[in-house]
Structure formats: C-alpha cells, structure tokens
C-alpha cells in the first residue's frame, strides 16, 4: 500500500499554488541490486489533480523523474476550504488518491 501524498495548496489573490510530493521509488529498471540482479522498473506513469470536477493538472512520467516526485504548479480559482483530489497510477497498475483542503496563503 503506497504512502499518502504530501500536498499543500495555498490560495492567494484567486490563484492556488500547489506543492506536492508523492512517496514512490520511481525505479528506472536500469539499476541492479547487490547480487547483480536487475531491479525491475517501477514508476508512476500518470498523475491527475482535480478541483471539484475540473481537471487542473496532469502529468505523464517516465522513469527519469526522481524518486518521491516533487511538483509545483498554480491554477486560477480555488478558495480556502475547498478540496483538491490527486490521483496517480504506476506501471504496475498500483494507484492511489489523496485529498487536501485548500488553505488561505499566510499574509
């Protein structure tokens, strides 16, 4: 079971700033373990973030994205107390969804 995403979403002047980190090994399939056995590829392929019904961000990943992917983006809209839903899938068919409440940006 994958660990929860860490997501922070702050709204200021009608723009929501989203920073997120997704716990995931992002194994490229290029590495070998101590015994020389190749470590199979295991990486997130797609991520979507929705504000209500509206898709605000999508990322498709290859194995060159770092372990525990970090992302930052901004979208117009969002209000304190509203929810964002993030969902990812990986190349093994594992998936996870997490929700975060938008906060007012500190003044």
């Amino acid at each position, binding site marked *: 079971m994958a660990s929860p995403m860490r997501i922070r979403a702050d709204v200021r002047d009608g*723009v929501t700033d989203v920073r997120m980190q997704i716990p995931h090994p*992002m*194994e*490229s399939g*290029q*590495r070998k373990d101590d015994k020389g056995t190749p470590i199979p590829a295991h990486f997130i*392929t*797609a991520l979507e973030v929705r504000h209500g019904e*509206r*898709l*605000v*961000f*999508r*990322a*498709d*990943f*290859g*194995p*060159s*994205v*770092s*372990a525990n*992917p*970090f*992302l*930052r*983006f*901004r*979208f*117009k*809209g969002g209000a304190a107390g509203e929810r964002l839903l993030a969902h990812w899938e990986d190349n093994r068919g594992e998936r996870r969804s997490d929700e975060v409440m938008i906060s007012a940006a500190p003044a």
Partner: protein
Amino acid sequence: MDRKRRELLRAGGGLGALGLLATAGVVTPAQAQAAAARAGFEARDLDAALAALGAERAEASADVSLTAPDIAEVASAVSIGVVSRVPGTDRIAILVGKNPFPLAAVFAFPEGTQPEVTTRVKMAQSADVVAVVRANGRFLVVSKAVSVTIGGCG
C-alpha cells in the same frame, strides 16, 4: 498489448492514425488516448523522443524560461523549472538528453492553469536538459547544459 500498441504507433506515425483506428473501432478511443499519453516515453535518444512528441522542428524561443543548475550536486534529484509566456501553451515536456529514456515528463495545462511547473529529475551523466512547449500546435524549445559529477540514474 504494449508491444502491439507500439507497433500501431510506429506503423501509423502517431496520433492521426490511431485516431483513425479508434474511429474504425479497431482500438477504443480510451486506448488511443492512453497510447498518445505515452508517446515519446519509450524513446531511447533525444531526437527520437522529440520526434515522438511531434517536436522535431521545434523553434528556439525566448518566451520559454528553463531553470536548472549549472552543476547538479545531487544527480538523482535535479530541480528543473519551466515557465512559458507563450499564449495558448497547453503542454510542457521535460527531457534529459543522455538518460536511457530521455523523456522525463509531459505536463498538461488545462485552461486556467498557469503554464509553469517545477519538478526534479534524475541525470545519468552531464547532458542538456530540454524543455519543449506546445502552444496552439506550435512547438518551442529551450535547453540548458547541466553538469553532473556522479551519475544519479537509477
């Protein structure tokens, strides 16, 4: 299935043919869309990845900013920022020139999302990091050489 999809992509030269196949009911629209989202991720070199994105003739642009370090201290997590000031930007792709699979990420920006993104990538060795912007069907490109001391691929 994956192999079949790749062959379809190769045979058809991209999305257009898949769209046609979808129309003909050979592949479902969802399959065509899924295949389109993976275009370029199988490419083993930069030129092939750019071609798969349809960006082989991308023009250099001063309206796209790429932020990356000159020297990456930690090659397994190199911070990359891309900002597009090109109206109509709906995609930004980040590629790492000499990685085994150069295409790192493709970001989609629906209407209302600002065409800028920050993320972190692995670098196998010193290479050009390339950002490709799609705006109104045009492709714009900017790149920056990033040196790494110890490879971080893996």
